[in-house]
């Protein structure tokens, strides 16, 4: 029960590998990586670079979903924080810009968390409020324009590189490591799983479920803020209308592909990130193969349905491989 990562992650990692190989078949240069100006370039690197925002979102989302919640507002929070970062970038120093953007993400998360934990509103409704209003707030910040900036400091976060890896990838890995240390290095992860499995029993067992709930939404807000900063830095500007649009759905999809049950309970941060890269690898593959990009949504729908059916309480265990994974996750996260 306690140790499971290497065993249950196989199907996702195999899936990612298969998709990458499929990409290589349609585009033989897929695995070609060249070094230019001390940075790695190539389609494979691009998959990870483009997948970084969704991967960042999925790190926060997986914790929220493990608590039986859902955070629909992450796309809008991305837009808000990206707008703040872009409009401050040319007049303030990088620490101020980052503090302002991350602070905004923290406040958004705090708002969601308070609505869910204190007012007792269902997560899907509570975060819907910010999802609807958030994009309006982002447009208010940019005054409806596409704000651009030239600051090289902020641009580094989107287009620069650390040790040859693109900065977004490094940030994603850093955030993942930090979250893992916080959640798995302490009893926090166990408490999150317990609360997601049975909130009432956990509260009776002395877990501060209310505090943890708020904390998890705050973390999701922070992850969304970071994703927003990266997305803004990447395009050297902020587009309040389109930044992070529908990415909340991709993040939820990544978490579901990563094997975390929507009924709460057991979760895996690493597999959620792998799920995000699976989605991006599929997107890239469809582009490379010359199919119209419009097929993307249909493929995504088929993937969601397949994963869902494997996760279904009715079918659990009938699929070899994925089935085993979901049967296991079911025992920890069945609806009470």
């Amino acid at each position: 029960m306690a140790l499971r990562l290497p065993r249950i992650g196989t199907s996702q990692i195999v899936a990612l590998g298969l998709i990458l190989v499929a990409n290589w078949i349609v585009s033989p240069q897929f695995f070609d990586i060249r070094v230019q100006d001390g940075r790695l370039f190539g389609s494979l690197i691009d998959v990870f670079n483009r997948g970084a925002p969704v991967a960042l979102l999925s790190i926060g989302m997986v914790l929220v979903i493990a608590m039986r919640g859902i955070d629909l507002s992450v796309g809008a929070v991305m837009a808000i924080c990206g707008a703040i970062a872009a409009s401050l970038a040319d007049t303030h120093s990088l620490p101020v810009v980052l503090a302002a953007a991350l602070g905004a993400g923290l406040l958004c998360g705090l708002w969601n968390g308070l609505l869910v934990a204190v007012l007792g509103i269902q997560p899907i409704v509570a975060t819907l409020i910010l999802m609807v209003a958030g994009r309006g707030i982002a447009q208010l910040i940019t005054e409806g324009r596409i704000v651009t900036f030239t600051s090289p400091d902020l641009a580094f976060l989107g287009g620069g590189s650390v040790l040859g890896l693109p900065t977004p990838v490094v940030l994603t890995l850093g955030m993942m490591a930090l979250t893992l240390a916080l959640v798995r290095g302490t009893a926090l992860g166990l408490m999150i799983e317990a609360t997601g499995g049975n909130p009432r029993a956990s509260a009776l067992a002395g877990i501060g479920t209310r505090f943890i709930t708020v904390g998890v939404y705050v973390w999701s807000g922070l992850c969304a803020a970071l994703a927003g900063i990266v997305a803004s830095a990447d395009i050297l500007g902020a587009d309040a209308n389109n930044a992070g649009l529908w990415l909340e759905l991709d993040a939820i999809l990544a978490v579901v592909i990563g094997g975390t049950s929507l009924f709460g309970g057991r979760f895996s941060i690493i597999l959620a990130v792998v799920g995000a890269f699976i989605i991006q690898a599929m997107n890239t593959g469809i582009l490379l193969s010359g199919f119209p990009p419009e097929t993307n949504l249909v493929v995504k729908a088929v993937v969601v349905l397949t994963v869902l059916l494997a996760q279904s309480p009715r079918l659990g265990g009938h699929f070899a491989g994925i089935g085993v994974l979901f049967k296991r996750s079911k025992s920890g996260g069945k609806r009470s």
Partner: protein
Amino acid sequence: MIRFLSRLTPVLATAAVFLAGFVVCSLIYPNFASLRVVMNLLTDNAFLVIVAVGMTFVIISGGIDLSVGSVIGFTTVFLALAIERWGVPPLWAFVLILVICAAFGACMGAIIQYFELPAFIVTLAGMFLARGVSFLLSTESLPITADLYAHLSDHALRFEGGARLTVPALVMLAVVIGGMVLLHLTRFGANVYALGGSRTATGLMGINVARTTVLIYILSSVLAGLAGIVFSLYTSSGYSLSAVGVELDAIAAVVIGGTLLSGGYGFIFGSFLGVMIQGLIQTYISFDGMLSSWWAKIATGLLLFAFIAFQQLTLHLARRSRRAPAGVHP
């Protein structure tokens, strides 16, 4: 009588907000309080009301349907292609698309019911699928030039002062009345409420839960298809990117209309008023001319919050008043 009125409190609150908003707008803009503005309000929001009626059934039953916006987009593209390219007579195209939508809803309902999956994620897949298929059909905006369309958009009940009650508005009013009858006066409607209260108890009462669930999603998808027809009448075109995000507007309208998102409680008429309040905000912004469109989103978000907080408060009070007598008579 008092109990009956207190049951209606959320709808009365929504109605009061709508009336107050309308009065404020009329005081600021003297031209606002005209039949023409009201009629335009009905026409411009007709498709959203139709979707919201279907969404009300789904939400009262304890589910959610995220696919409706995509279904509208798919419907408009399908109609444009069927009528203009494949030469299907418009009325047959209408029948065909409603049948397709019914099948689509039946599939989603069946998956939710038989695989015991959350409605949220199943309809999310439906949303991807419907939008993706409409992208595959065509990514251009296709004009619809059929005679029937010109005839229908010309046809309207005319009032003095240039006010017109158009065909979309008439269809919408018929759907609202039909929805009210179906939800409040039939056995199916009672089953929908029961499902939202408790699925297990509903099953134990001998109600066919599976059949009701599938029917609810069929209803929602068919109404989304009908909304798509109305939308294509309204714009005389089909476009795969039309009605993006409409599912959120519809959910917001249903919540503002006093329906509980946890299910078991709600009114069609409230959802109608919820859409009208959103329309009122839009109209106010277009009258003002200085305010930007994003204020509409922020105002809708604030309204959502106010109504949800109000719901939580009434629920809390109801629970307390229910608990009190139990303590008095142990």
